[in-house]
């Protein structure tokens, strides 16, 4: 029964959601809305699970002195800091998002600069990777290289300053060859998605139970 009950729940939920899409009238429309609300509530609880898992993993790492255990202290400190400032701001201002709150202070002065710095580093690594990877080794690689250079120039003002047809060429590349490939890939992906959904609803695909 440990396998059958989840499969029955999955089948009924999936089937009702498909029916509600075509018949959004009572009782199906209401049922679907109820399922969506349940989904949102369950999604909220998954964050608690994630928190539990994160704390346990990092405490274990510190206790066992695994490689990089010192960073776990930083992570746990950050976690506690955000929780404490979040709750303190919530009690004081009814929301953590009040600009004068301690949560927003830590958000603007710690989280934002850290995230921005991490992402800004990408500019350097992408430049280095482009230099190493974009080699005209084959005909296809050469085509890719030329297309990338045109789009890179066409998407910035200097492209038009060099030659006014570069943005036109860039738009053509984005709107014709790029779209053709993209559509082909997307149609394949979504057909695969439909097939996988049907397999899950009908109980053929059961790997999610393990």
């Amino acid at each position, binding site marked *: 029964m440990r396998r059958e009950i989840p499969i029955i729940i999955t089948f009924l939920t999936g089937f009702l959601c498909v029916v509600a899409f075509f018949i959004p009238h009572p009782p199906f429309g209401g049922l679907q*809305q109820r399922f*969506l*609300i349940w989904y949102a509530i369950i999604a909220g609880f998954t964050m608690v699970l994630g928190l539990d898992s994160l704390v346990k993993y990092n405490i274990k790492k510190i206790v066992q002195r695994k490689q990089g255990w010192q960073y776990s202290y930083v992570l746990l400190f950050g976690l506690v800091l955000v929780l404490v400032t979040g709750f303190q701001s919530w009690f004081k201002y009814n929301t953590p*998002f009040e600009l004068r709150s301690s949560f927003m202070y830590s*958000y603007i002065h710690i989280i934002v600069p850290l995230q*921005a710095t991490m992402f800004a580093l990408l500019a350097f690594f992408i*430049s280095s990777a482009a230099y190493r990877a974009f080699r*005209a080794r084959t005909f296809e690689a050469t085509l890719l290289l030329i297309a990338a250079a045109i789009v890179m120039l066409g*998407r910035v003002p200097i492209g038009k300053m060099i030659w006014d047809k570069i943005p036109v060429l860039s738009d053509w590349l984005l709107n014709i060859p790029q779209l053709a490939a993209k559509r082909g890939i997307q149609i394949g992906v979504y057909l695969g998605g439909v097939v996988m959904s049907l397999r899950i609803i009908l109980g053929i695909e059961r790997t999610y139970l393990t």
Partner: protein
Amino acid sequence: MKLLDRLANIDRRLIFLTIGFVVAIPIILKLKMPIRISSEVRSAYETIENLPGGSVVLASMDYDATSAPELTPMFRSFLRQCFRKKLKIVYTGHLAIGLPLAQFDLDAITQECNAVYGEDYINLGYRPGYTAVMIGIGREIRDFFAVDYKGVSVDSFPIMKGVHNYNDIALIVDFAHGSAAEYWIQYVVSRFGVKMFACVTGVMAPTLYPYLQAGQITGIIGGLQGAAEYEMLVGQPETAAFGMPAQSIAHIAIIAFIIFGNIGYFVMKRKK
């Protein structure tokens, strides 16, 4: 020939240093460049321009600080355009860590435009559930957002009077650095027929062109270039327009490195 050989193996620290310089110098020198307005950005701008005053626009903040340089200028220009047009903004988001960032800009622009909370705009906050929330709003927004981000009942605000589902929303604008824009199109636009345009990072923009060409969205504002174009259209160029010379010269530097690498590669290949 030794120099040509070296071109194939430039020290990556030199690449890092060059990129650092070419980004910093145009910003320090405050260089300016003419900005061409693309059809997809103009179309997004005109979508808002063509809305009658008082229409409700749903803005979804699905980005965080990692993409702020690209998306924040779009959001600020969007707020200015909407408030000038006397449109009502209902705003939410599917990225818990991103919403406070939007709050920062929202506070600044609402003060600049004298917009009143609860009348001209409302912050509904974050709810977990992602696509479930998107679809659920199609029936009744209060099923997911009974209160605003401060826990006050949404029915106590004039802006929410008569706003129940997508029939009452004239436009959706998604500010996203991930797949959120695609989800809005697939789960909401195609199902409920509501108008939408997307403000996304440069990396994500090509993903949305099929939807633009199919007429499922009315425009794309993509990357720093798109943000700069939008700033120009709204008439208040800020950080995006200011950043375009740096991005332009950085692109030239990357292309130069690629050319050097290929010269070195062919020289070494010929030797072998």
